[in-house]
């Protein structure tokens, strides 16, 4: 089940939305108000076969 569907069932959809919107705002590194730029770290795996 999608998190939003689960949150709606419990009447918590607005709380989930707020948490995610706050997250996006805090992670946005763009200096322009018209653009969102959000970096995310990942693990690059290289396998020599």
């Amino acid at each position: 089940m999608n998190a939003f569907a689960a949150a709606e069932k419990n009447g918590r959809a607005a709380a989930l939305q707020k948490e995610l919107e706050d997250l996006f705002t805090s992670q946005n590194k763009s200096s322009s108000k018209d653009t969102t730029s959000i970096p995310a770290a990942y693990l690059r795996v290289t396998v020599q076969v």
Partner: protein
Amino acid sequence: MNAPANPNKALWEKGDFTRIAATMRESGEALVGQLGIEKGMKVLDLGCGDGTTALPAAKLGADVLGVDIAQNLVDAGNRRAQEMGLTNCRFQQGDATDLRDLPDHSFDLVVSIFGAMFAPRPNEVAKEMVRVTRPGGRIVMGNWIPGDPTLVAQILKISSAYTPPPPEGFVSPMAWGMENQVIERFTAAGVAPEKISFSKETFTSIAPAHLPRWWMISEPTTARR
């Protein structure tokens, strides 16, 4: 006996992942530029979505096959390849845990950027990736990191607080972001540990300022842990 159906098919087809993928083009192209892709190289992009990394690889001259569980993303990838005039890139529906249509040792490079990590049965995924890669070839995966303070791990952390506990035996896709788990899976597939290397990299999503709302609506991974 047929392999069990991949439960991710319906999930990925439900959202419109192409809108999220559109924010990843720049980083996708930059990543592909670092992979030493040459003209004529045979490349498999597993969990390719609508071609964020497959199409840049084809633009470098590789002969690219993109495989994804979601038919809507396969269709979108083929449309994008056609629009770009790329005849050396095609997309087909398939399951990363069971690539039976693809012969052994048929690719120089197998790429999976935030793709195969979401497939169930990770040991089967590792086995299949190794099987279809030619000896001397490479596999490159990009996997989100559990507990990382940046965006994707935090989305998953927040979402998990709103969803029911996963079923018993559930293996989190985020385990692909843990070096010890990756080593365990590939060594079980016959790769020597010294042939596996890691680096921590950054992928940046760039979009108009309204990104947050439609990301939340479209992002199928909000259902995952």
